[in-house]
């Protein structure tokens, strides 16, 4: 699997699921926290990539 984006989505999903399950007790809260973490990781990375786009090396 060589796609950067797929790795970003998958890695974020693993980390989000882990912390969602670890830090919250109720299933709904686990989903909410997991989704927030996933969105923050993926969104943050894409935002950073977008900001860096005008400045290649």
């Amino acid at each position, binding site marked *: *699997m060589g796609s950067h984006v797929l790795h970003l989505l*998958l890695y974020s999903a*693993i980390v989000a699921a*882990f912390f969602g*399950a670890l830090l919250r007790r109720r299933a709904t809260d686990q989903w909410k926290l997991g989704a927030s973490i996933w969105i923050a990781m993926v969104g943050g990375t894409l935002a950073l990539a977008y900001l860096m786009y005008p400045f290649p090396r």
Partner: protein
Amino acid sequence: MNVAAEASRPPGSVGPSPTGLTILALLCGWLVPGLGHILLRRVRRGLFFSALVLGSFALGVTHEGRVALRDERQAPFLSAMQVVANAGVGLADLAARHHVYGAVTYALPNDPGAPSYEAWLGILRDRTRSVASIYGTAYLWTAGLMNLLLLFDIWDIGRGRKQ
């Protein structure tokens, strides 16, 4: 363990001293991700975390992640921290080291003239050169660090601070 007493305890309060079962669960949880929770009767939680940690570990191995070796000559502290992140996953790390280096080793030999020094360094460099290695390393170290964090969860469950 008295379940009713545990349930009535206010959140955040300190429970009884760790029992032998908690210590055993900590050890088993480190060696086999998820097993500590299962021993404390959190079977679903244990299986879920086991799947996450071992899944991440498997992705790391298949993507040629860096199975770190402590290097006394270059950045000994940093390389030792990398070894800790790898070793966090327990027995699976032993298997990975045997698979990658042909031996269960955690450090490069101090003597650069030793035959295993060049061999292991070569293997480490070859894996690092792989395009996917940076992803593999992230998965591997994340698996180890997640499992180490789970030990705190096991501790809290064993102490009665968490259900």
